[in-house]
């Protein structure tokens, strides 16, 4: 018997809402959305946690410029708090090294982190999902039973093909999808909202492709001034901490 599976509900019990930022496809802005969403919620006065579940390409710490912090040990692991965000990532244990983990290892790592992390009271736990619909998303659904998804996409037909599959799967499994965010919009016309209408998910607007966004990565002050963050701030006004 794996004792870890029993305790996960208790570890998450004082978290009001769990929001996973997904989309299936890589490079669509999931990590940027998860990171700025956590930041914006924290700035709005909420108690926020951020869990980076992308063990191959952990990016939230790069986006938020988090380094030199480490969890404390106290009846488990207490994530360090930065910008008011309790931040948990595999990087504490892998540093910058490549992490060649098969699915079974990814699954075990997720279970371990969920079993030992003491989040305490949170209004929101934001989860940055890796690409794919494999172990990470299946364990997120299986182990964090109250999880809701925020879906990111771009207007590209390559991204849309995958995002549709993710929406189809989550819908079938009756997992709440709180919104769809279109990212990296180019000058060309986009039909994203229309093309995803069949899924009946609120469309949370469009963020333009921003040539200069890169400059803001790693600097939360600059980051908060980007159009990206401004858009996320507007969304945050609509989100309630109790669903």
């Amino acid at each position, binding site marked *: *018997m*794996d*004792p*870890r*599976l*029993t*305790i996960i509900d*208790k*570890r998450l019990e004082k978290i009001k809402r769990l929001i996973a930022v997904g989309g299936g496809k890589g490079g669509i802005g999931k990590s940027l959305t998860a990171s700025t969403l956590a930041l914006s919620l924290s700035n709005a006065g909420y108690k926020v946690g951020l869990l980076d579940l992308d063990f191959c390409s952990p990016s939230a710490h790069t986006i938020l410029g988090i380094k030199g912090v480490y969890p404390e*040990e*106290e*009846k*488990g*692991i207490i994530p360090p708090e930065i910008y008011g965000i309790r931040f948990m990532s*595999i990087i*504490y*244990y*892998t540093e910058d*090294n*490549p*992490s*060649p*983990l*098969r699915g*079974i*290892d*990814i699954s*075990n*790592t997720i279970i*371990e*982190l969920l*079993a*030992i992390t*003491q989040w305490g009271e949170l209004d929101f736990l934001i989860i940055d999902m890796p690409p794919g619909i494999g172990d990470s998303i299946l364990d997120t659904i299986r182990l964090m039973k109250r999880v809701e998804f925020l879906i990111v996409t771009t207007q590209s037909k390559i991204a849309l093909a995958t995002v549709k599959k993710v929406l189809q799967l989550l819908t079938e499994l009756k997992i709440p999808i709180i919104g769809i965010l279109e990212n990296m919009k180019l000058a060309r016309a986009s039909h994203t909202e229309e093309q995803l209408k069949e899924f009946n998910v609120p469309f949370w607007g469009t963020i333009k492709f921003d040539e200069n966004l890169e400059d803001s990565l790693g600097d939360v002050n600059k980051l908060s001034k980007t159009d990206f963050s401004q858009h996320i701030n507007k969304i945050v006004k609509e989100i309630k901490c109790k669903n």
Partner: protein
Amino acid sequence: MHEWALAEAVISTAIKVAKKEKFKKITKIKIKIGELQQIDIDTFEFLLKEIIGTNALVKKTKLQIDKEKGLLKCNVCSNKWDFKEVIKNLNEEYGEAIHFVPEVAHIYTRCPKCGSPDFKIVEGRGVLIETVEGLR
């Protein structure tokens, strides 16, 4: 003492089993601790007792805690090896990381025969409950 969280998981699980099995008392919990996680058995027993406290269901439970050898097997060359051999020469910081998340063994160690990071943790990963015995 992050192991407290795992000890709590063990007791919670034993209580859950007891409820399912309609035990009035849990008489024995058999626990295996895999060597990758490098948890001191005495410390773990101490934590388990602390968590049990005065809970009547588990207060008089016998705790049997055994070590499980850390057995690794390479997916490339099929070589098998013992984590005990690895830990001898392992940087302390890496050992500590493996203590928290045994899977990071794939980051800090390699198959001693072919050098691959692509191996299975066959046994001895972490904390497992073997059996929960009780009286109805």
